């Protein structure tokens, strides 16, 4: 049962991550290769504040999201004008830098040892109750995030973001502060990543720097591409497909002994890579993409 809970919790947390990335990449066209940095900031902020300073859990989560947002703001102001490719490279550098800071500022972050004893929500109720209740809390926050993103997607703001992605100069010629909107999207997406990071820390109850490698960014991109970049439901589907696959193949490892553990994990990435290539070739709009465009066509007929 615990294992099922964890799979669902990871699925939800990756859903949240994919939702934030979708706002940045899917809606606005911002490629953020340093996404994991904001996840780490959220996780560490909440963990340190609740463990070392005994903050209440909700305050820790809020601070995690807020600090991730705050960190992304100057980064965005300084670099978003650089243009897509440069920005992607700078963010990748930023996430490596964040990881180095976590590793070396041992006084603050506990270094490579990591932080133990992070509380789960409802921990006082005992492990049997706290796991499902914590899961429900994560589900509720993920649902709220999905609702927020859905609202943005269906508002004039979402329309403007898609316009900025389609042609930034044209949006500027119409009086839109495109740089401001891109920074806004970066900040909101980072807050979502920070919250997801905090939720993750309090679910697994132990964090260390190696949990925040670029793999997290990579996996989030995969989830988003699987589900359909820019589609509204895509991130949910993509995240769960990814987590079921990743976790499923780990379980399988215990029963199938043809490959060594190393070979297995290599094989896992080969399968993901192959699936991505096939998907991009045969269904570039993602698993959910087709449905979305069918719906928008229908609504076009109605009006």
């Amino acid at each position, binding site marked *: 049962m615990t294992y099922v809970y964890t799979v669902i919790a990871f699925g939800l947390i990756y859903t949240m991550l994919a939702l934030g990335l979708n706002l940045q990449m899917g809606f606005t066209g911002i490629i953020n290769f340093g996404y994991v940095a904001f996840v780490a900031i959220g996780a560490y902020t909440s963990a340190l504040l609740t463990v070392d300073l005994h903050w209440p859990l909700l305050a820790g989560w809020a601070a995690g999201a807020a600090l991730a947002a705050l960190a992304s703001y100057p980064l965005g102001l300084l670099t978003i004008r650089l243009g897509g490719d440069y920005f992607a490279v700078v963010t990748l550098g930023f996430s490596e830098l964040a990881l180095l800071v976590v590793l070396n500022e041992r006084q603050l972050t506990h270094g490579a040892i990591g932080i133990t004893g992070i509380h789960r929500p409802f921990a006082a109720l005992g492990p049997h109750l706290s796991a499902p209740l914590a899961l429900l809390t994560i589900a509720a926050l993920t649902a709220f995030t999905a609702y927020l993103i859905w609202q*943005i997607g269906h508002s*004039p703001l979402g*329309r403007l973001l898609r316009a900025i992605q*389609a042609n930034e100069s044209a949006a500027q010629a*119409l*009086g*839109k502060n495109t740089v401001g909107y891109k920074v806004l999207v970066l900040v909101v997406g980072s807050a979502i990543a920070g919250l997801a990071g905090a939720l993750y820390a309090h679910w697994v109850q132990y964090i260390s720097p190696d949990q925040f490698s670029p793999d997290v960014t990579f996996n989030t991109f995969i989830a988003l591409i699987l589900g359909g970049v820019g589609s509204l439901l895509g991130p949910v589907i993509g995240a769960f497909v990814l987590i079921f696959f990743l976790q499923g193949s780990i379980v399988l490892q215990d029963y199938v002994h043809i490959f060594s553990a190393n070979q297995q994990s290599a094989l896992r990435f080969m399968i993901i890579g192959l699936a991505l290539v096939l998907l991009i070739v045969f269904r570039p709009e993602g698993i959910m993409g087709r449905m979305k465009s069918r719906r928008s066509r229908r609504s*076009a007929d109605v009006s």
Partner: protein
Amino acid sequence: MLLEARDIEKSYVGSRVLKSVSVALKPGSITALIGPNGAGKTTLFDIISGFVQADSGMVRYSGEEITRKPAFLRARRGIVKTFQIPHEFGGLSVLDNLLVASSDQIGERFPVGLWSRRAAREQERVNTETAYGILEFLGLLASREVKAETLSAGEKKLLELARALMLAPRLLMLDEPLAGVPVSVGEQILEHLVDIGAQGKTLLIVEHNLEAVMRVADWVYVLVDGELLASGRPSDVQCNERVQAAYLGKA
């Protein structure tokens, strides 16, 4: 003068694209900017609208110096330009292309727009009506739900114009608005431009269809190789020998 650009200089690696160019636009006038390909017309447009920074010189609008003002702020002040190469929002419907253009949208604010939904909807309704009017006039109403990327080149030029009109600009700058547009529609657009001018708006038009431009313009600047060769009333400019030699002869 509504707009004044003085002593504008611009060079790209090795070549001087604009050589101390000065233009001035009277409020409510229609000014044409003509000249052969590569003369620097689009570059001058970009400098006035804020998309390109001049190497030197200054731009003054409505009594205020705007030489270093970012493009989007100039647009908000009423300087709206269209692009020579259509810059449509390809994945958006034609109607959405126009709706995006509307200024001061409550629904674009974050996070306020997410809960002031009634006000946003009401504003959207008004903007949609405006958009329908413009689309109807330009003959794009039937295509309002199709994605902008599927339009023909001529229709995209019209969309470009339609979007600019959504902002009700004080100074409307059109970069070859008739290129690729069917002649009959072009005629209508010209008439409409005269109407817009009559309403006190100021227009600056780059156009290759000389005969058309000469008909609607109050004032003409002739730009050749980055230099102002002549300026004046259309009739005077047409008679100017240097212009005939340098431009009309070639065209």
